[in-house]
């Protein structure tokens, strides 16, 4: 079932078309990556999903019904890009306050806050003020506050920015766990390695338009260039075959591009026929980073302002 469907969303500002006809859907329980260069319209899109902005055109269907910000907000958790916390408020109190604003009763909020604090090893922080925390710590806190009320849809805007590998890992594991427990997560990021590790579905936007939409595996298949890496001990200086083209040759490592007319078996046949001892043979799928750059290249690096009619 689609938890969230966006249909032909448009949001125009006076100086640009921030979101220009974007549609996609989120499956329940999936981890969704919203990618795009700076200025692509990600934040505007996310704000429309949280009900902070209203689209100029298009619809949002949440849980099968038209999206009603005021009531549906209780099922959505939103973590903005920069830390959104009251600096001088005590942490425990703040989590309770924000949880209650989301509709939890005081008792529930208290219980859940305690649970999460214990789980993230934050118990000793209860009485501290936010300004006493380091970036990684406040990020963890923000995360806890976002998921406190067991939202069905969790929206994270750049959740890993500024985190060291250990903390980033912790958040990553939590996201996995939440998805396993039935929540749907959508997060926007620039960090492609993270996307590859966590997401099962991605959407790439640029200049307000969607340019990619699919599972990670599909996208990679879509953009593969038929590159394969071969590791062999006795590679000859030159190789010639109708099956492939040598792209790179570094000692025992070889990168070849299989021609459209051929396939892996013929390549392997070549090596075997030539008594070359193969140690490893792998497909080189493009990294999302490469795909990203490939697609965005050609468009201007930063978003230009335009006059919207």
């Amino acid at each position, binding site marked *: 079932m689609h938890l969230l469907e966006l249909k032909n969303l448009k949001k125009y500002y006076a100086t640009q078309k921030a979101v220009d006809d974007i549609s996609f859907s989120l499956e329940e329980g999936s981890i969704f990556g919203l990618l795009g260069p700076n200025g692509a319209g990600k934040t505007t899109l996310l704000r429309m999903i949280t009900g902070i902005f209203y689209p100029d055109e298009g619809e949002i269907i949440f849980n099968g019904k038209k999206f009603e910000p005021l009531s549906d907000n209780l099922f959505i958790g939103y973590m903005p890009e920069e*830390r*959104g916390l009251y600096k001088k408020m005590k942490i425990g109190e703040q989590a309770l306050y*924000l949880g*209650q604003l989301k509709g939890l009763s005081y008792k529930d909020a208290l219980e859940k806050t305690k649970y999460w604090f214990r789980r993230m090893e934050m118990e000793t922080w209860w009485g501290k003020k936010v300004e006493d925390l380091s970036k990684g710590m406040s990020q963890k806190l923000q995360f806890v*506050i976002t998921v406190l009320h067991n939202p069905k849809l969790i929206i994270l805007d750049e959740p890993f920015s500024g985190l060291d590998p250990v903390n980033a890992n912790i958040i990553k594991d939590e996201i996995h766990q939440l998805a396993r427990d039935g929540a749907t997560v959508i997060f926007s990021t620039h960090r492609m390695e993270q996307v590859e590790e966590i997401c099962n579905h991605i959407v790439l936007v640029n200049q307000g338009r969607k340019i990619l939409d699919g599972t990670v595996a599909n996208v990679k298949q879509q953009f593969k260039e038929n590159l394969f890496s071969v590791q062999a001990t006795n590679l000859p200086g030159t190789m010639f075959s109708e099956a492939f083209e040598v792209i790179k040759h570094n000692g025992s490592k070889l990168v070849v591009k299989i021609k459209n007319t051929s396939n892996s078996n013929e390549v392997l046949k070549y090596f075997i026929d030539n008594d070359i001892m193969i140690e490893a043979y792998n497909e080189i799928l493009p990294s999302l980073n490469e795909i990203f750059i490939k697609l965005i290249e050609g468009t201007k690096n930063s978003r230009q302002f335009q006059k919207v009619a």
Partner: protein
Amino acid sequence: MSKIWLIISREYLTRVKNKTFILSTILTPLLFVGLITAVTFISVKNVDKENVAVIDRANILGGKLDNGKAVTFSFVPGVDSLNYKEKGYSAILYVPTDSSDTYRLVSKKQFGLIAEANVEDRINEAMENKMLKNKYNIDMQSLDSARKSAQKAKLDQAYYEGGEIKKGNSSLAYGIGYGSGFLIYITLFIYGSMVMRGVMEEKTNRIAEVVVSSVKPFQLMIGKIVGIGAVGLTQLLLWIVLIIGLSTAASAFLSPDTIQQAADASQQMPNASAGMASNTAKQFEGLKDTLGSANWLMIAGCFIFYFLFGYLFYASLFAAVGSSVNEDPQDAQALLLPITMPIIIAIVIMINAITNPSGSLATYSSMIPFFSPIVMMARIPFGVPGTVPYWQLLVSMSLLVLGFLGTTWISAKIYRTGILMYGKKATWKEMWKWAFRKY
């Protein structure tokens, strides 16, 4: 609705529990009353009593010289300028034996101003009485009683109020009017800027985004305004209670006599602040007597109304400004100008209007919502419905309430856009556009 309540209690509790708030709420009245008491006390206690031995060879004074507050006179034989110290006197007063009026005071140290004045006064008084007795055969007793009866003429200011004659007291009204006007003026600034700072904090910290994903921006704004207003009200009430309590305690400590002394003393001292302090102390005393003449219930009621609605009227504007500002607090100052200007103008008008509370300046400006909290409050102590007819009061109040609804409506729209708009420098023109933007 309960969400607004949540916001209100958070805004209220975080501020009220703040150490700075508690300190300033308790210390301010303490300092205020304490300072006045201390100054009064010191100026009085500063007076040493001097013992003066009087040498009256020609017996001009007839062996009698009244003691002053700071001086006691003794007519003793056998004291002269050499032995007066041993005998326990601090000075010798030589009454002239000839027809000159120069009395000579020899002392071991310089007499204080008060003591000196005392000596002179007493001597003059004695001379006066003597002369009256000798020349006109009037003795002290009859003179005194004549004076007392003459004092009876007092100006009883009365005015006609709805069929009754009510006692008027313009200086009291003046004081209350001035005081209330200023109090509201200060409050508007303090709590208005508190609202603005709170909004700015939420914007720069991005907490606004998180909260706005749970509640409507309007709820956040109103919750904040009401919460901070409650803090202001709490502080006001605490101050009133503390000031009344402390000044009652202080006046028990200082007898009316002491206060009178201080007032006298201050008249002779060139020290202005001491004079002011003791005058104020005198006012405290005087206040008690004239308490009955003012219509306290009406004044207090109107004060609370204008305090609250004046705050509500302006607070939303402060919130709107706060929402438009980015990191630079300088922007805030610039944007704030069109809002602080009316408040300042109101005080200026009030200072003028209070001398003529029924005049057209006072009347018209007490209707305009921008000025009414301050100006109307200054007019009311002069009498409702005497100086301020009921219809005027009603119009003023209704306009203020309508005004508050209006400013809140516009500010809510500006706020809604402003708190999420980063990077763009806002001007009032820009903000005006936001107010009419569709979402």
